[in-house]
């Protein structure tokens, strides 16, 4: 049992490492299509991270919405504009060294803050599995106004997207 536990922890860290490698590949790969595929790998890996955090419903939503819908949209957009990203066209601007320096400083500060902050841990939450039913009760109870607002927002955004992308007559 102890060995199984240890293997599970090693698996989670391996998953995190794989996600980070895929994310680095995503921002550095030249071809935007390969970059989109690396994003799909990152999103599936994050669904796995949700599973380790006992958020089963969220993992399913992640696969459905991101890997199913958002990735399809992105790959469509990449293909529609593909002939622009020819091998000779530079894909990055010239700010890369400056960006790396700034981001390393940012990450250093953030890690220091994360390690030093005394988080008020609630041990009873650690084993609680949130089912879809509890999420639904939260949506229909405490967060009902935000829930209705986000549905109106989604409709507005989708109609707006169609109006913007449609051909003018």
């Amino acid at each position, binding site marked *: 049992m102890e060995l199984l536990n240890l293997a599970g922890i090693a698996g989670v860290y391996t998953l995190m490492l794989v996600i980070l490698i895929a994310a680095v590949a995503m921002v550095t790969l030249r071809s935007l299509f390969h970059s989109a595929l690396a994003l799909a790998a990152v999103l599936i890996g994050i669904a796995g991270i949700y599973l*380790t955090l006992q958020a089963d419903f969220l993992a399913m939503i992640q696969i459905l919405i991101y890997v199913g819908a958002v990735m399809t949209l*992105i790959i469509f957009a990449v293909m529609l504009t593909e002939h622009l990203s020819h091998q000779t066209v530079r894909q990055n601007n010239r700010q*890369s060294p400056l960006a790396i320096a700034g981001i390393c400083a940012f990450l250093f500060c953030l890690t220091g803050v994360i390690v030093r902050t005394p988080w008020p841990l609630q041990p009873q939450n650690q084993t609680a599995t949130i089912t879809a039913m509890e999420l639904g009760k939260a949506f229909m109870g405490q967060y009902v106004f935000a829930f209705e607002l986000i549905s109106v*927002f989604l409709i507005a955004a989708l109609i707006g997207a169609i109006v913007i992308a449609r051909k003018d007559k």
Partner: protein
Amino acid sequence: MMIPLEHYLIFAATLFAIGIYGALIRRNIIGILISIELMLNAVNVNLVAFSRSTSLAPETGQVFAIFVIAVAAASVAVGLAIVIALYRVRKSVYTEDIHLLKW
């Protein structure tokens, strides 16, 4: 199986930093949008990790994460629609060619 909260937070911070890097250095607008999706996902990991460890009602973080996913889906739909419209008008998807609102 217990992973400390700090490790999830550091993982999400690194993912967020990689997303910022991609958004800063890409010339292609679609590349920038992809990087923004990565940043939103890093924030979601943070929300879920916090809701499991420190929140009083353990479902709060997941509710927020679902809201973030909905807003991300809307943003990518509108963003890609703008990219397609710009491509039709300007025949370009590179940031320095699109300076209509810049002076």
